């Protein structure tokens, strides 16, 4: 449903592209075939409001049948333009759209340097590596293995595992990264989260969360009851006064 490619350069020229970095918007587009519509195991971070940084990148998947373990695929990023399709969806462009026309800039990423011209807002805190140690300079629609071979975006876990052996080992053993479904695979299937569900590839430190479900201690409960009683009292009072004024 996207408009013809020819209209895109104009869009870029006026710089009206919305970048997708850090946004949850993408998981709602029709571009993500596995995304929200498909029922099943919900994506991580069920209440994004409580999270200081919301990526909204995790993908909903169905719980597989008994005996099977499904690793949630990581998402394939696209860039949204401000143009809309006839159905009101933003026109999306692939990474290669621009990157096939320009050579990779090897400086980006080093010493925390981020592109100045585009992808503003990208928070980069992941060591001193160049962007193209993960992104494939030969094809920006893929990632890059240390030996130069391409890795598809949904398999980003393979990328992370190359440099993070201990966590990759723990993950493979079921001791890092969590899971949903069955402990007993003879009775039901299981879904595993993927690395990028929890770690932003550019700022991988796990985000801070606001704790939920504060314990209701006796003191607080009594205080709340007193406050409620007080509120009820003043409301009554206020209402009474209002009644009078009506008379």
């Amino acid at each position, binding site marked *: 449903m996207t408009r013809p490619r020819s209209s895109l350069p104009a869009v870029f020229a006026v710089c009206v592209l919305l970048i997708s970095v850090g946004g949850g918007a993408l998981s709602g587009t029709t571009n993500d075939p596995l995304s929200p519509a498909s029922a099943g195991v919900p994506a991580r971070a069920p209440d994004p409001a409580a999270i200081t940084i919301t990526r909204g990148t995790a993908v909903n998947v169905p719980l597989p049948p008994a005996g099977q373990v499904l690793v949630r695929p990581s998402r394939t990023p696209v860039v949204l333009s401000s143009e809309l399709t006839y159905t009101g969806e933003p026109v999306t462009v692939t990474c290669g759209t621009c990157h096939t026309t320009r050579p990779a800039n090897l400086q980006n990423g080093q010493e925390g340097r981020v592109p100045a011209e585009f992808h503003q807002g990208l928070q980069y805190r992941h060591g001193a590596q160049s962007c193209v140690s993960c992104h494939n300079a030969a094809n920006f629609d893929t990632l890059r293995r240390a030996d130069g071979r391409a890795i598809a975006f949904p398999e980003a876990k393979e990328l992370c595992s190359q440099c993070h052996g201990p966590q990759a080992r723990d993950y493979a053993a079921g001791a890092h990264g969590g*899971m949903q479904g069955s*402990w007993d695979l003879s009775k039901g299937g299981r879904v595993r989260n993927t690395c990028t569900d929890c770690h932003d590839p550019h700022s991988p430190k796990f985000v801070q969360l606001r704790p939920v479900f504060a314990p*209701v201690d006796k003191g607080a409960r009594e205080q709340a009851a007193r406050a409620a009683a007080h509120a009820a009292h003043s409301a009554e009072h206020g209402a009474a006064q209002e009644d009078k004024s009506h008379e």
Partner: protein
Amino acid sequence: MSELHREPETVEESGDSGGLSRRGMLKVVGATLGAAAFAKAIAPLTTWAKDISVDEFLQKHYRELSPVDMQFILAHFEQEAKKTYGADVHIRDHKPQEGVKFGYALNLSVCIGCRRCAEACHKENNHDRPSGNSYIRVLEMRKGSLDLGQGNVNYTHPVPDPDHFYMPVQCHQCDAPPCVDVCPVEATWKEKDGIVVVDYSWCIGCRYCEAACPYHARRFNWKKPQIPAEEINPDQGYLSNRIRPQGVMEKCTFCLHRTRDGRLPACLEACPTGARVFGNLLDPKSEIRWVLQNKRVFVLKEDVGTKPSFFYFFDV
């Protein structure tokens, strides 16, 4: 093995309730009722519940109930949930699985103290809403200390705080459970898969077990639990998350209504950090066994000799 640690079958076979009398139970009542219930077995469950008072059935200890008795009781509790809470629930009597002993491990390097486990427990196990009850308490602890007494549960700032680590505590399903030893009426016992259960219909609410637990893992129902009908989890177990009556003890059962069906506990699935590892200690290929073999695990208050099935570890 003391009488308290008898396997469930031995108790059923003996049929001798001498040691199990409670509330002045009469042995003869139980015997007569067994036959009466059997005669009724051809009638639909719903009609039984109308003519036989469930109190008479509840004069029997869980481990003496025949399958027919149990069907009757479950149907009764389902009707009661409908009547008092307006909820359509399904209660089952989940049995331990052969060759399974449950173990749980928690990675303290990964847990960030967000309390989503405690919240999931609250919902899954049909806890009283106003008191915010949960089988899990999350302690905020100073880095470098393991003194539980210093743990703070009332933090509200964003987590993790860099000077602290977070330690969720729930029932450790001990192999030498002091809570079971002190129960004067055998209303709590350890099952074959390691879960320490409470028969809420047998408990007299003396709270000795609460005092005996070194992990403060047991809770008392001070009031009749209040839960809006639409929030009640209808998937219930007799020994786990059925709505408890007022005045009885309750505790974490590793969600046996889920785990005895092969599913993961609610607190594990809710954890956004992946800090929790659950599985069968008797299966050498299980995730939990991998953790025990490859991480330096420890248990809380090892010196009290409770032999927990709940382990903690740090990544090194």
